[in-house]
């Protein structure tokens, strides 16, 4: 029976064009595969969004209530009790914009970290580019954010903002933030797939980031009196992507913040778009590359 020993099995397999099971496709092929799955990504996200609150009695109403309650809590603590509003004319629009925009990043990252470990049975049964999952989870959060945006605009107009063309800048700003979030959740998806401990740690990291990003107080106001002697720290806070996207949303939406508060605090907003574009590109390209490097290992174990 063993007369064919002249040819090894591996050689035989190679001669017939068989490949090592679960090899990683090259990066360009992988990008095409993900792009080909775009309908899957969108449909997966929509299905997740619509099934999100099915077990609760108020159902989809929570999509609006959750952000509103968040704003209520932050206003009570930071607006009323601690009074962090110094330097800001319209504090409620300022706070609400900050909370909603930062929540988008925060929730994308949390969902991204679970996107592989939470879909193991799907990953094991069907073959598809795994990067579709973190992308889909960011789209879920984007759909949530769009609902929050309706609430936000209602609040803005209620607090005296007038509709203007300048507000349309929020669209490119959100697109850039979405790219940044996708990149970051791709990184976290890979980390979370192999080190589940990160899910215990993530809430603390994200909360620290929230306080460092000027979501509930104006960084320029703090910079003016407390950080005067640490210019490098100010530069660091300016470059922080969390704060970049939040500030960009505020300068786009709140007229008084852009034309009155920031100049009075001696702060410019010229750097914001450049930082926003740079962070979006770096995160998305780097995150995709990093996620792809472990493509064949997701679902193992």
């Amino acid at each position, binding site marked *: 029976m063993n007369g064919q020993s002249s040819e090894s*099995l591996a050689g035989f397999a190679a001669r017939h064009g068989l490949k090592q*099971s679960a090899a990683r496709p090259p990066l360009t092929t992988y990008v095409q595969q993900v792009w080909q799955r775009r*309908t899957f990504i969108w449909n997966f996200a929509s299905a997740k969004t619509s099934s999100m609150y099915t077990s609760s009695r108020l159902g989809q109403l929570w999509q609006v209530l959750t952000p509103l309650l968040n704003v209520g809590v932050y206003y009570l603590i930071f607006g009323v009790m601690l009074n962090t509003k110094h330097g800001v004319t319209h504090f409620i629009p300022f706070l609400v914009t900050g909370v909603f925009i930062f929540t988008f990043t925060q929730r994308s990252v949390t969902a991204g970290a679970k996107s592989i470990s939470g879909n193991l*049975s799907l990953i094991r049964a069907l073959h*598809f580019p795994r990067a579709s999952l973190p992308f889909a989870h960011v789209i879920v959060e984007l759909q949530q954010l769009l609902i929050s945006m309706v609430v936000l605009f209602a609040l803005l107009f209620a607090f005296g903002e007038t509709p203007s063309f300048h507000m349309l800048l929020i669209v490119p700003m959100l697109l850039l933030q979405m790219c940044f979030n996708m990149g970051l959740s791709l990184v976290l998806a890979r980390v979370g797939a192999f080190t589940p401990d990160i899910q215990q740690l993530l809430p603390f990291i994200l909360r620290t980031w929230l306080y460092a990003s000027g979501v509930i107080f104006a960084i320029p106001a703090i910079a003016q009196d407390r950080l005067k002697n640490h210019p490098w720290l100010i530069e660091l806070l300016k470059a922080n992507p969390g704060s970049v996207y939040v500030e960009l949303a505020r300068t786009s939406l709140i007229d008084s913040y852009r034309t009155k508060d920031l100049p009075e605090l001696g702060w410019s907003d010229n750097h914001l778009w450049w930082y926003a574009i740079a962070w979006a590109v770096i995160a998305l390209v780097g995150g995709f590359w990093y996620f792809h490097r472990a493509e064949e290992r997701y679902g193992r*174990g």
Partner: protein
Amino acid sequence: MAKALKEKAPVSDAQPAVAIDPTREPIVVVDDLHIIYRVYGSGGGRGNAATALMRVVKRENRPQMKEIHAVRGVSFIAYRGDAIGVVGTNGSGKSTLLKAIAGLLPPAKGGVYTDGQPSLLGVNAALMKDLTGSRNIILGCLAMGLTPEETKEKYDEIVKFADLKPGFIDYPMSTYSSGMGARLRFAIAAARTHDVMLIDEALATGDAKFKRRSKAKIDELRKDAGAVFLVAHNLDVIEETCNRVIWLDEGRIKMDGDPKEVLKAYTDATGK
């Protein structure tokens, strides 16, 4: 790890040698495959934070980490059109072998070579259990790379094949019985022609009617020049469906050949 491999080497030599059939086209080649995986115990009664910290400080492995050498030097070739049944007692490495072919377990030694990406259907829960059956069908098809138009075409076929009770298609998949879930998953996965399909007990929960239809589907896949691997404890299913049977025992191939012969030897050995 290396030592364990060496010790077992003389035994694995006793496995039937692989003969290459040059007239047929191979689709899966398994070359001297060893799979070793680690299991973590709960740490007995001493799994508290202090012991965990000491372990990190001393750079020890997690407690009760055992290395299980589940597959020990398996080699075989599956050709296009094969339906291969895998039999063996519990813990003989059947499921591990299928997972390795699917690429879900890294080989410790040796390799698995396949044409195309194998699809593994296990007994585990639904694809997306919080979504309805119809959503699962659409998303499953799209994930496998079908276009929206193709998905629409296949949809009715899948529903018909899964043959769920009326109305269930609109319920979340978590409410399905295990048989219904298995049927729907099999129907979805079979909607696309796979080169290699690995079925791990997924048909065991189906009723007689479904078994008949799934056999027809497997025959169809074979005709499309793919290969099907079937793990089942129900030997009748294997005898009816497969043209070849591999008997695994303690991670080694004990017999590989014609279903009647192998199954007879297997039932004699296990004293059924």
